[in-house]
C-alpha cells in the first residue's frame, strides 16, 4: 500500500509539472509587450518599460518559467497586472468560497445519486430504473448555467420567490444565510453530477449483481439483505469512488458558469474575469490551482479505492 501510495503521488507530481508547462506555454502566446497591453496606448514608453522590468518580462522564457515555478511552489503566484497586488490576495478567499459551494453541492448530490443508482440497478428494466436513468442522463448533459437559469426562473423571485436569484460575495454572512443563498447554485451543480454518479453506480451494481460471487452468496441461502449489503454493494459501489473523485475536478469547470450566473466571486468567476481583462498571472494561478485540486481529489479517490480493494492493497505491499 505504501509503495502504491508513493507511486501514485509521484505520477501526480509529474502530471502537475507537465500541467504547469502547458499552462505557462499557453500564456506565452502573449504579445511581446505586456506592459503596453496593460497600461494602454496613452502610457509613456518609460512607464511601460518600468512595468515590464518590474514583472521580469524582459528575461528569457526558461528563466521566467523557472522563476514562476519556484514562486508557485512557495505559494507566490506573482502580482496582478492591473493593480500590482499579490495574486494570492484575491485567490485565497475565492478558493474558500468555491470550496464551500462545491462541498455543498456534493453533500446535496452524492448520497442521493448513489442510492438512486443502486435502486435503478436492483429494479433494472422496471419503471423506477427507466425514470432514474432517463432523468439522470438528461440532467447530466444540460449545461449548469441552463439548469441554474431555469431553477432561478421557477424558484427565484420571478415566480415562486423561494430562494434569492443572486448570491453575491456573502461577506460576513452567517452559515445559514450562506446555505440559503447558495442553495440554487449548489443544486444546479448537484443535478449535473446526479446523473453521472447514478449511472456509474448503476453499472457497478449491475455487474456485481450478475457476478458469480453473488450467485455463491445467494445459493448459500443468505438473506437477500445480507447478500446485498455484504456482497453486492461493496463491490458494486467501489468503482463509483474514483468517479466521484474525478468529478470534484470537473465541478470547477461548471463552477465558472454558475458563479457568473449567480454573481458569486469564487475561483470560477475569478478565472473568467482575469481572462477577460487578460490578467495573466491571475489566470495562470487560477488554472493551476484548479488542476491541483483535481489531482488531489483523484489521488484521494484512488487511494480510497485501493484501500477497499484487497487486490490492489496487497499486490504491491508484498
Amino acid at each position: 500500500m505504501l509503495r502504491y501510495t508513493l507511486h501514485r503521488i509521484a505520477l501526480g507530481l509529474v502530471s502537475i509539472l507537465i500541467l504547469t508547462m502547458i499552462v505557462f506555454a499557453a500564456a506565452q502566446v502573449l504579445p511581446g509587450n505586456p506592459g503596453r497591453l496593460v497600461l494602454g496606448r496613452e502610457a509613456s514608453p518609460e512607464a511601460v518599460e518600468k512595468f515590464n522590468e518590474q514583472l521580469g518580462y524582459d528575461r528569457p522564457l526558461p528563466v521566467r518559467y523557472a522563476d514562476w515555478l519556484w514562486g508557485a511552489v512557495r505559494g507566490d503566484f506573482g502580482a496582478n497586472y492591473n493593480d500590482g497586488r499579490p495574486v494570492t490576495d484575491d485567490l485565497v478567499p475565492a478558493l474558500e468560497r468555491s470550496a464551500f459551494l462545491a462541498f455543498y453541492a456534493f453533500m446535496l448530490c452524492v448520497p442521493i445519486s448513489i442510492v438512486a443508482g443502486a435502486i435503478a440497478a436492483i429494479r433494472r428494466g422496471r419503471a423506477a430504473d427507466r425514470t432514474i436513468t432517463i432523468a439522470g442522463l438528461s440532467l447530466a448533459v444540460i449545461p449548469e448555467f441552463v439548469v441554474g437559469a431555469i431553477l432561478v426562473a421557477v424558484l427565484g423571485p420571478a415566480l415562486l420567490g423561494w430562494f434569492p436569484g443572486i448570491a453575491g460575495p456573502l461577506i460576513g454572512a452567517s452559515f445559514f444565510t450562506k446555505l440559503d443563498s447558495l442553495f440554487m447554485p449548489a443544486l444546479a451543480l448537484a443535478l449535473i453530477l446526479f446523473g453521472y454518479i447514478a449511472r456509474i453506480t448503476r453499472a457497478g451494481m449491475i455487474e456485481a449483481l450478475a457476478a458469480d460471487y453473488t450467485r455463491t452468496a445467494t445459493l448459500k441461502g443468505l438473506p437477500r439483505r445480507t447478500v446485498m449489503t455484504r456482497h453486492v454493494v461493496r463491490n458494486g459501489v467501489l468503482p463509483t469512488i474514483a468517479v466521484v473523485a474525478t468529478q470534484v475536478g470537473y465541478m470547477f469547470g461548471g463552477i465558472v458558469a454558475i458563479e457568473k450566473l449567480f454573481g458569486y466571486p469564487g475561483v470560477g468567476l475569478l478565472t473568467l474575469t482575469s481572462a477577460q481583462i487578460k490578467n495573466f498571472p491571475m489566470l495562470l494561478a487560477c488554472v493551476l490551482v484548479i488542476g491541483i485540486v483535481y489531482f488531489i481529489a483523484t489521488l484521494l479517490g484512488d487511494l480510497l479505492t485501493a484501500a477497499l480493494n484487497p487486490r490492489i492493497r496487497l499486490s504491491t505491499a508484498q
Partner: protein
Amino acid sequence: MSGVRDDVPQLPVLVDAPPAGQPSLTHLDSPGRVRRETLRQIVRSKTFLLGAVVTLFWLVCAIFGYWIAPYHPIDESFAPSYESPSWSHPMGLDRVGRDVLSRVIVGARSVIVVAPAAMALGVTLGSILGLVMGYFGRWVDNVIGRILDAVLAIPLIVLAILILTALSAGQEGINVSSWQLIVVIGIAFTPPVARTVRSAVLAERDLDYVQAAKLRGERAPYVMFAEILPNVTGPIIVEATVRLGYAVFTVATLAFLSYGPQPPSPDWGLQIAEQYADISLAWWATIFPALAIASLVVAINLITDTVQQVLDE
C-alpha cells in the same frame, strides 16, 4: 479451455449448405439478421424516436431559421420591450424589444454548425492518439498518457477559456471565431476520446489476430488502422454521440461566458447571458433559450443512450 460458458444463446451459424437431402437450417443468428434486428430495435425505441424528432427539428431551424422565424431576430422595432408572451409574440419580447421566438429559432444555427465539427475533430484526433497509445504501449503510452492526464486535470471550460484568451491576446477584448471554437473544443475533446479508444485497443491488442498480422510481416500502421480500427468502431461511435452532446454543452456554455458569437447574435447562450440579469422582470427572455439548449442536448443524449444500449446488448 473448452466448455466456455455453455448455453449462452449466441451460437454461430453456418455458411455451409446442409448436406443434400436435409432440410435447410433457419439462420436465426446470421450476421445480416442480427444487424437488421439491431437496427429495428434502435428505430422502434420510443426514446430514440423522441430524440431524433427533436434533433431534426433544431437541425431544420438551423438551416431554414430565417425563413421559418416570424420576425427578423435582430429587429428591435417591437415595443414595448419586455412584453410578456402574447399571440403575436408567443415567447414575448426581450429587453430591447426583439421577438424571442424568432431569436430562439435562428439561434440554433451557431451551435449546430460548431458542435458537430468540433466533435468530429476531437474524435478523429482522439482515435488516432488512442490507437497509437494502445498499440505501442510501454513508454509511448506512458509519455502521452502523462500529458493527457495533465490536460484532463483542467476542466474543459477552463481549458477553452485559457486557450481562447491566449489566442486573442494581441487584440482588444475577446474575439472568438467559429474556427477557433471548433479547433479548441476539438483539442479539448482529444484526451477523453483517446482514453476511451486506448482501453478498447488494449482489449484488442492481445487478441491473436493482431499477432497473426505481425506473423505475416505487417507494419504497425497497417495493424493499427486496417486490423484494429474496424474492431473498435463500436466504442468510437458511442464516444462520438456522447461527445456531440458535450460539444453542444460546451459551445453553449462558452457563448454564455461571452467566448462565442458577439451581440446582437441570437445565439442561445449569449441570449441567456444578456437577459439573465433581468430575470425577475422578464423570465421568458431567459427561459426559452434555456429550454432550447436543454431540449437539444437531452434529445442528442436520448439517441446516444439508445445506440449505446443496443450496441452493449
